[in-house]
């Protein structure tokens, strides 16, 4: 891998040819480019995702093909490692092949050159001097020294003196350093890779666990004892809890690595910038170790890991650590009764709820103590607002179907009125659709719930329908009982339908049950009757009087009606209102042990030094041939460089003038 060519050996044995092939430039360049192209795969195809995602993406056939090729963890795939190994071998062979020549080049001054070859060199000059040979030779050597050249005089045939000088021999060290560095870095990296785990897996000593198990349930074959091997894993520890294991993610599963000490998390903190963006993540840790007289405390933050006994402990993520939540479940339909029920639960806790005849599983999935988001009421999305705590949960029916909900603790203001916000969606792929529950003057949902309870109160609805029917038919000259019964029936049905399915169901009824000819006339009448009923039911409530009704009350009625009309799509029999919480966070730590790290860093240092030596310390040689001519002392100056020929041109031209002036007679023109 250098311009130094080795002599072709005549014995072209098989091993010799293999050696030459491995050390060849062609192979090296091919490997560099192959490695570059192969590396692209892992950046285009997201690595180490759940295998189910790959199946969905590629279909079962290609999934299988790609799995066999190791494309889901391409950088540990056998073929990829083989390319790397071949590159390391190729580089090593290259270094071994060229080392002797390089070492020689680095130190040796070339003393066995001939006058003829000096004259023939690209950079060559001659002049004459009246001084003695020895004076000229010594002066030249002095000048070479001033230029930073190491030199030596040798006596050649006919008593001629050759001064061989060199500068920048360390350039050859650049070659050695850079190439050895690649080998060192790869070997160091191998220590820290998961190759040892792969080998253990092939030998059947360990088995990668793919199930979601608690730590106790993880079988011994998926556990790794404390040892010297490198690893990189992560663990989530709630505040106040401790861990002495870490999970190593491997392909679609994990292994459990034991730690030689226990990490306790006292506190986890997030600080924020004024705009709500996180500013810092910090964890207060306590390390318990039998080797220590007493545990010690340390605070870690992003970019500030703790390094203890060869283990680096990094702040990498955070999540909820099982916050306690106090919740009131407000009934939204008859299934759940009429009074709010208090529930105590925790994030990540699942509990069975019995609402009416229906059992539902309540799964608390997350909690956030505040939400700083763009304010939807402002046009500029840089205006941020804290929407207060929120939590998300799933309600799973007995058949296993689940809907996801997101509720905010504090009401949200819109157009001067306040609402409790609850988002609902059927799958994580959808975005949340929000239900706005109107808040009454006391800041509760009581009035809304009272009103919606009244709509379900059959007796009350019947009474109000009756009085409305009576008023409506009062102008008729004589009573028509059939009509009365029919109207009463219709009014009651409208309310029942509305409670069951909102305006949509009422419209469906109109579309499907009224004769085509009359539909256009009757539809507005039906909707009018429904609105009138809804208002009358509202006015039947305590403290609300149709004569003195305020605008606010009418708006509240409007909001309540709108909300009840959409409840059928909300799908939950209750609204969960967060009343109190105790926030417990969990810190996500990444723990790594990299025994090869210092080897790699050493290799990196070699590489940097090597690269700069290689490019910026050209190896320059100068020769001066001094011999006694007929009248004068004859001088031949020649030079060569292995880099930066252009600069050497200038350098040589300057030096030849300078040296000729210093050693020659002023009346003798230097020729070249």
């Amino acid at each position, binding site marked *: 891998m250098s*311009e130094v060519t080795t002599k072709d050996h005549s014995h072209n044995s098989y091993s010799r040819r293999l050696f030459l092939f491995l050390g060849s430039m062609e192979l090296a360049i091919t490997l560099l480019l192959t490695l570059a192209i192969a590396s692209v795969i892992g950046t285009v195809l997201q690595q180490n995702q759940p295998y189910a995602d790959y199946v969905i993406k590629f279909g079962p056939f290609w999934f299988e093909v790609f799995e066999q090729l190791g494309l889901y963890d391409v950088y540990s795939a056998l073929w990829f490692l083989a390319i790397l190994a071949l590159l390391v071998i190729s580089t090593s062979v290259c270094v071994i092949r060229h080392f002797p020549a390089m070492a020689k080049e680095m130190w040796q001054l070339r003393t066995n050159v001939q006058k003829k070859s000096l004259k023939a060199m690209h950079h060559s000059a001659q002049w004459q001097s009246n001084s003695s040979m020895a004076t000229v030779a010594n002066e030249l050597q002095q000048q070479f020294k001033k230029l930073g050249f190491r030199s030596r005089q040798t006596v050649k045939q006919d008593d001629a003196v050759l001064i061989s000088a060199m500068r920048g021999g360390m350039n050859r060290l650049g070659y050695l350093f850079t190439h050895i560095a690649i080998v060192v870095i790869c070997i160091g990296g191998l220590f820290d890779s998961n190759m040892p785990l792969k080998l253990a897996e092939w030998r059947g000593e360990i088995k990668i666990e793919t199930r979601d198990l608690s730590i106790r349930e993880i079988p011994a074959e998926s556990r790794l004892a404390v040892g010297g091997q490198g690893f990189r894993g992560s663990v989530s520890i709630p505040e106040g809890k401790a861990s002495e294991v870490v999970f190593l993610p491997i392909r679609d599963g994990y292994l459990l690595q034991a730690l030689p000490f226990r990490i306790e998390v006292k506190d986890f903190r997030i600080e924020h910038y004024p705009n709500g963006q996180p500013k810092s993540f910090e964890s207060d840790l306590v390390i318990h170790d039998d080797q220590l007289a007493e545990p010690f405390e340390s605070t870690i933050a992003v970019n500030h890991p703790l390094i203890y006994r060869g283990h680096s402990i990094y702040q990498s993520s955070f999540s909820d650590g099982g916050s306690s939540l106090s919740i009131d479940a407000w009934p939204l339909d008859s299934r759940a009764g009429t009074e709010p029920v208090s529930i105590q639960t925790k994030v990540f806790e699942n509990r069975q709820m019995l609402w009416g005849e229906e059992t539902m599983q309540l799964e608390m999935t997350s909690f956030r103590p505040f939400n700083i988001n763009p304010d939807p009421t402002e046009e500029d999305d840089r205006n941020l607002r804290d929407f207060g705590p929120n939590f998300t949960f799933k309600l799973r029916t007995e058949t296993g179907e689940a809907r996801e909900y997101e509720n905010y603790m504090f009401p949200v203001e819109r157009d001067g009125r306040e609402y409790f916000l609850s988002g609902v969606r059927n799958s994580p792929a959808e975005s949340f659709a929000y239900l706005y529950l109107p808040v009454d003057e006391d800041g509760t949902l009581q009035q809304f719930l009272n009103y919606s309870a009244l709509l379900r109160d059959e007796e009350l609805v019947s009474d109000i329908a009756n009085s409305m029917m009576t008023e409506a038919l009062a102008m008729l000259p004589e009573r028509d009982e059939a009509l009365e019964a029919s109207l009463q029936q219709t009014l009651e049905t409208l309310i029942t339908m509305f409670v069951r399915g909102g305006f949509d169901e009422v419209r469906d009824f109109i579309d499907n049950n009224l004769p085509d000819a009359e539909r256009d006339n009757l539809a507005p009448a039906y909707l009018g009757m429904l609105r009138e009923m809804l208002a009358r039911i509202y006015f039947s409530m305590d403290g609300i009087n149709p004569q003195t009704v305020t605008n606010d009350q009418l708006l509240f009625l409007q909001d309540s009606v709108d909300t009840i009309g959409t409840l059928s799509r909300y799908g939950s029999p209750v609204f969960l209102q967060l009343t109190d919480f105790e926030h417990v966070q969990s810190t996500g730590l990444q723990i790594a042990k990299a025994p090869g790290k210092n080897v790699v860093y050493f290799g990196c240092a070699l590489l940097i030094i090597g690269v700069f030596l290689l490019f910026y310390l050209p190896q320059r040689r100068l020769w001066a041939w001094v011999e006694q001519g007929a009248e004068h002392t004859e001088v031949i100056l020649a030079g060569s460089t292995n880099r930066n020929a252009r600069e050497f041109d200038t350098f040589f031209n300057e030096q030849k003038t300078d040296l000729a002036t210093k050693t020659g007679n002023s009346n003798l023109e230097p020729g070249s």
Partner: protein
Amino acid sequence: MTTNTELMTKPAAHTWWWYALLLLATIGILSVYHQVLDVYEVSILIFTGISMGFVGNNWPGFRGHAIAVAILSLIALQLYGTNLEAAETNGLLKYMLASQSAIMWMSVFFIAATFTYFGGLIFRSDYTEKVGSAFTWIATTFGMTGLMVRWRETHMMGADIGYIPVSNLYEVFILFAVVTALLYLFYERRYQVRSLGGFVLLVISAAVIFQLWYAFERNAHEIQPLVPALQSYWMKIHVPANFIGYGTFAMAAMIGIAYLLVSWRSEKNPDSGFVKAMPSLTLMDDLMYKSIALGFAFFTVATILGALWAAEAWGGYWSWDPKETWALIVWLNYAAWLHMRMTKGWNGNPMAWWAIVGLFVTLFAFLGVNMFLSGLHSYGSL
């Protein structure tokens, strides 16, 4: 003292004042900010001072540039005081020195320089090309001043918000333009050729236009606080080292284009004016090699610094994250290029083509990864 091929050159006697000035500046900064700088930041500051000393030692243009940036930035700081609103009320800030205005001027001058350089090339006017150089220097000075002033502005946004403005995609585009221009100006002086200016400025102008679009369409110029992962002194060395790499690779590709044009023209008509106006093929070939070698050296440093930082922030020096992997791909590509050139002795058209392909690989590592791939390093998105 014209033969400075070595990395470090002895200080020339006539530039002692330059070193004294840098020493004074370093001491000045330390005395004002010593309380808020940690040991790493102090080391970076001293290292910066020393590097500027070496870069400016034989390069008067750089000295002038650095002094102009310092004076303009200090004026801006003085005008600002502690009041960010001054950007709207003070005329000099509003029209020239507030970071946004300075960056606008940078954009204008870079684009003007591109046209001027090409004008000089087309009309064979040395004077016009010199104007192109002057414009490039002015643009670079405005760009660097813009970054410096923006640095101060981030600190004025609020307590603990301040950061070095090489932290998001918008800011690094400015850095890219400035660094590429400085690298070009260095070689322009070293090789005494101005006819490549238009070609190099073309890639800078492309970056400038993108940056303008990014600011106007996406409000990318607004200062946002840093996410915790980016709050580190590593930022101050990792990013600039990377952009020396990106800048030289971009420059090499543009020289590659010029090389191919000249080579194509000279095959058809060796006496054409264009061929004569352009530098010789061997010079361009050499320049291409020089810039790729420089870029490769700094890209190596940058990638290693990135690995050291990753070890501190992400828990491992190498994660095969898309950005890391693409950095490796870029590195491997240029490693292969250099091997071809240095040991196989390849040169000419194929290497020029390869340098151009290299720019696309680099561009993907720089931009494409952030746009199309997800990973740990997704700090700038479009």
